[in-house]
């Protein structure tokens, strides 16, 4: 957000190279995928990955940057009503950027461990809460298929209660809108753009197949960091 410090204003002239940092506003750029677009075949086609990353995620980032700039201006001018009006655009586009950044890390080609079930403390916690990884997957698939319209289905860790929950969010709402202490471990995009070209309207097939490329290692890392 706008890092408006007194120091920034003083160094007005010195930082002429980075006009955004001048105003203390950081813009966001599209993160690279750690794998090729086609590396997740046949679970997710290369076309979908390319469109999803280069078009959809990029659009969220572009619009997020735009909304942040407008918010910056509104705050500078003391325009409270515009600042509040922009909140929905920020939640949508910013949420889209946050969610998709997590999503790319949640996926991995089978060669690099995608689909391999979790070991260690996360695996143990899943067995405790859900019985088995298969049962968790079945629950997440059921909730994902039941999402009306667009949204996400999450496996989350409640930091305070130290337990795993399965949640769904609508549109691009980030997981924290469902609970401030929720940390996303695995998120699956069930917007139609995530699967339509390949699976058409059969969302359950997409959900069944995506588990073959889910990166449980990343989820385990996050879990171990929060629950050592």
């Amino acid at each position, binding site marked *: 957000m706008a890092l408006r410090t007194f120091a920034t204003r003083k160094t007005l002239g010195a930082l002429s190279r980075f006009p955004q940092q001048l105003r203390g506003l950081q813009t966001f750029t599209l993160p690279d995928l750690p794998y090729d677009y086609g590396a997740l075949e046949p679970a997710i086609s290369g076309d979908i990955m390319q*469109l999803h990353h280069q*078009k959809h995620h990029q659009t969220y980032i572009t619009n997020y940057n735009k909304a942040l700039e407008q918010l910056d201006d509104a705050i500078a001018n003391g325009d409270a009503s515009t600042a509040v009006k922009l909140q929905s655009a920020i939640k*949508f586009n910013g949420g889209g950027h946050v969610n998709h950044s997590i999503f790319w890390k949640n996926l991995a080609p089978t060669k690099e461990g995608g689909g391999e079930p979790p070991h260690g403390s996360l695996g143990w916690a899943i067995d405790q809460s859900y019985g088995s990884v298969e049962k968790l997957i079945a629950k997440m698939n059921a909730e994902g298929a039941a999402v*009306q*319209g*667009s949204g996400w289905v999450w496996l989350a860790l409640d930091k305070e209660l130290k337990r795993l929950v399965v949640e769904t969010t609508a549109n*691009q709402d980030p997981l924290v809108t469902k609970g401030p202490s929720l940390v996303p471990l695995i998120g699956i995009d069930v917007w139609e*753009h995530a699967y339509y*070209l390949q699976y058409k*309207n059969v969302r359950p097939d997409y959900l069944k197949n995506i588990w073959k490329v889910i990166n449980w290692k990343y989820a385990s890392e996050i879990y171990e960091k929060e629950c050592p």
Partner: protein
Amino acid sequence: MRSAVDTSRETPFRCLSVDMSWSSSSNYLCISTSSSSSLISSNELARFNRLACESERHRGKCQDLNRPTNIFAYNSLKPPSFKFDKGQRRKDHVLKKPRNISAYYSLKPPSYKFDALEPYMSKRTLEVHWGKHHRGYVESLNKYLEKDDILYGYTLDELIRVTYNNGNPLPEFNAAAQVWNHDFFWESMQPGGGNLPILGLLQQIEKDFGSFSSFREEFIETALTLFGSGWVWLVLKRNEKRLAIATTTNAVTPLVWDDIPLLSLDMWEHAYYLDYKNDKARYANVFMDHLVSWNAALARIARAQAFVNLGEPKIPVA
């Protein structure tokens, strides 16, 4: 109490013209409906049931009036399957299968062929959008209605209002509303559509939006700034007696606010993804330029004027 008559879709004549005929195997009663209304509410099906059984009784063969005949709507999803054994003699009026009503609402096809909207909406999109999505909604609505009869006896419009439950929708709402929305959407498009509206509709648009081009711009901008899945509508607001552009999320329709929709644009991704991928702007523009059916909108606003007084039309004086 305000009447719940559907002003936007059905013809003024609510009763179906049906043509009941015995199928050749005589096990099934085929109801073919006229083009106006394909939505057969269950009390009407029950009526046909009774009539079918009565006519059977007249022929002296069927004594059991409580077992309803197998009834299929003519253009429903599952056509009756006739299995003819070569050696079997056709035994009229001997009903072998358990009889039950198999469809409450049927899937109505668009009034144009699937490839009629090319190149603006491909045949493939229509095949999947109508054949899979719309059909899926009809099937799930029928499945919900099979469970118990608490929601019987409503027309589709009434069903939508009832299941919307004033903002706390019942599970059937999504299916019912999406069936209605998609029927409305197919009728809002036509091959060779686009151009400008004419007559009173154009006058009303100019009155409420300033000019047609500013309406068009506002409509497209609304479509592009919709977050997530939803619909964009041109509605006639009943209370304010003027046209407006409305957006709804997921399955909601302006019917639930008692407004009268005139046009809709499906902004769910499945409506445009196969043709335009993520280029919503091109899709919205193409819809306005080549697909929108102003004839349908004109018919709808003409009907709506029976319920909303829009004042005197401006007739140019010579």
